[in-house]
């Protein structure tokens, strides 16, 4: 406990230099602008910033990326409140009550609530990042080939199930990602797979150009396809957060923070699901349900706390298992590998200081969004009025630079183009991108560990289903898949109703129904 605090103190002290603070402030501002501009996502922002930070020291580079990530997730709330357009998918839930408050002339208060929720959400996530990472690191040390295989499958299945609105298409996208990861030299014998004699394919499909394509170029095409809409901005009042909002909704804040962090830990799910889940939980527990969607302070607070708590949460599996909790966290994982940081089960053994460096980075990012939240509203309003016709061509140029700069290969630009066009078409057909990205990240883990496991057991499948962690992961996967099949779903609902019947509170016949007005 105290060791952790001391290491955290060291991390804070090491970041207290003018250059580092400048990096953090600039990166958060860039993230905020990216997040605020509809069509530009946190994933794209972090991917493009990775290119810029290639020559920096690892800690500076990761700090910049984390500040961009936190800034972008927070920035999405600005356009959600002022324009009713979520700047990032994570802010979609904030549109409901944020824009409703803005329509009532309370845009400033809504932005203050978003700032409060985002900062507190990041702090709650940060607390769990500091406390859960060592624990999860211990558990991860027990993982062998069988467990890592199931973890990869679990990531793809759960991500496919929770992102988007069609689990079957999510799983197809995930397995497509797993296949893409098998292209190139495989990890055990360096044998070329699906390269067709093309040398550039031997190195495999690099994650960053694929991500820049799927999240950058595809977004550029999506925005350019539609005629630009007139920007109608709401006027805004004072943006200073109110202490009363925090004190009044402290339960909602803590609940949303915990939900957001928990969803962040689940591989590949991400901030949008965290925001919606926190929002739904707040609505269920609220005494003012009828206000939700009509300008509820509690609803906006829940959504903003949930999505920002998800950011530190999604970094927990990155550090302990080298499995990203969200699409931007996948870029963060790639950036860590580029900079020679080795996340995974051994991180608490080999470089525990780095874990607390990341916690300190989250704190710095949250302070930066607090500063910008209080000061930069007018500038952001101006930025939101810049026509997208001017922004998108520059973004595409950055996509080209971003995909080329990593390995100085023109081939990577072609990879970006391919994934951009394919990503655009897949989105139009309702295939989510997050499972695809997670599949590309987890493909190597799945490939090596399935074959290692089979070699170790000489082809016997029993260890895949009998080791404690393996069987838990397998049951979770099987349960997730089966619950999406209507007949199993109905059977599970009936079974649950039967099992839980004795524990449910029975209503007395003389009890008036008006005593449960909020159900």
């Amino acid at each position, binding site marked *: 406990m105290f060791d952790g605090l001391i290491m955290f103190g060291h991390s804070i002290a090491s970041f207290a230099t003018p250059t580092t603070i400048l990096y953090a402030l600039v990166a958060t501002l860039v993230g905020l602008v990216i997040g605020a501009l509809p069509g530009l996502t946190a994933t794209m922002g972090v991917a493009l910033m990775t290119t810029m930070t290639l020559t920096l020291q690892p800690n500076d580079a990761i700090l910049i990326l984390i500040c961009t990530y936190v800034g972008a997730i927070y920035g999405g709330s600005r356009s959600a409140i002022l324009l009713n357009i979520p700047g990032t998918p994570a802010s979609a839930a904030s549109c409901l009550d944020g824009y409703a408050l803005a329509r009532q002339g309370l845009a400033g208060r809504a932005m203050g609530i978003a700032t409060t929720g985002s900062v507190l959400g990041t702090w709650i996530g940060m607390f769990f990042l500091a406390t859960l990472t060592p624990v999860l690191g211990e558990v991860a040390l027990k993982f062998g080939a069988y467990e890592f295989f199931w973890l990869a499958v679990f990531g793809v299945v759960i991500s496919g199930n929770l992102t988007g609105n069609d689990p079957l298409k999510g799983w197809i996208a995930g397995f497509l990602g797993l296949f893409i990861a098998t292209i190139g030299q495989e990890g055990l014998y360096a044998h070329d797979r699906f390269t067709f004699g093309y040398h550039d394919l031997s190195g495999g499909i690099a994650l960053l150009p694929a991500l820049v394509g799927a999240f950058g170029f595809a977004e550029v095409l999506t925005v350019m396809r539609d005629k630009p809409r007139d920007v109608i901005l709401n006027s805004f009042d004072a943006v200073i957060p109110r202490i009363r909002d925090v004190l009044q909704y402290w339960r909602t804040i803590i609940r949303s923070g915990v939900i957001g962090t928990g969803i962040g830990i689940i591989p590949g799910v991400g901030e949008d699901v965290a925001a919606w889940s926190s929002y739904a939980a707040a609505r269920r527990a609220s005494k003012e349900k009828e206000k939700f969607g009509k300008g509820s302070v509690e609803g906006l607070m829940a959504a903003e706390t949930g999505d920002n708590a998800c950011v530190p949460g999604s970094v927990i599996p990155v550090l302990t298992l080298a499995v990203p909790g969200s699409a931007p966290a996948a870029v963060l994982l790639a950036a860590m590998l580029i900079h020679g940081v080795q996340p995974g089960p051994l991180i608490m053994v080999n470089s525990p200081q780095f874990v607390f460096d990341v916690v300190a980075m989250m704190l710095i990012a949250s302070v930066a969004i607090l500063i910008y939240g209080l000061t930069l509203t007018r500038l952001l309003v101006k930025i939101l009025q810049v026509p997208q016709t001017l922004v998108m061509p520059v973004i595409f*140029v950055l996509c080209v630079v971003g995909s080329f700069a990593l390995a100085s290969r023109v081939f990577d630009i072609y990879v970006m183009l391919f994934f951009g066009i394919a990503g655009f078409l897949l989105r139009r057909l309702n295939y989510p991108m997050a499972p695809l990205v997670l599949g590309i990240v987890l493909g190597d883990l799945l490939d090596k560990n399935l074959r290692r496991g089979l070699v170790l057991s000489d082809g016997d499948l029993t260890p895949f289903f009998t080791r404690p962690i393996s069987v838990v992961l397998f049951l979770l996967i099987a349960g997730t898949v089966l619950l999406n099949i209507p007949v199993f779903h109905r059977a599970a609902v009936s079974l649950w109703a039967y099992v839980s019947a004795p524990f449910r509170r029975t209503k007395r016949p003389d009890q008036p129904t008006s005593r449960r007005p909020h159900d």
Partner: protein
Amino acid sequence: MDDRKPSAFADLVSGSCWVALAAAIMIGSWRMDRLEHLQASIYSAPGIVPGLIGVALALMGLVLMLRAWWAGALAGAGRPRFAWSEHARLLTAVALCLAFAIGLVGRGPPFWLAAAIFIAVTVFAFQFPERRAARTLLRGALIAVVYGLVSGYAVHYVFQELFLVRLP
């Protein structure tokens, strides 16, 4: 994400594409070298994992096709009607982006100039209808060129000079 639900026919087509891709993956995996000459275990053969992924993709593609069929895909519901005029903006964007990334980058002009040309042409092309209606074509062209040059040089300066990143 686009929330519009695609038609059953689109799902049938995409499902059949996945089945075809999965079949190609399975055939490729089956025909892949099993490295027996290296005394490698059959369980570590490079084709095992892609083969299994191919099987899973084929199954899911078939389920998607069946679901689309039940939803009336073959009855003609939701067949797309492609009109070039509806997709003019998208096709223009794709053409300009491909022309820049494949035709301009690394083909002679320095990156800042290539980027400036692309940005200027794209901005002008996408503002053309409004500019023409407002009779400000010349002004629009001038703004596009200046904006392109400033943006192209800014990208060059920030990446190459400030962050020492190699540009194409």
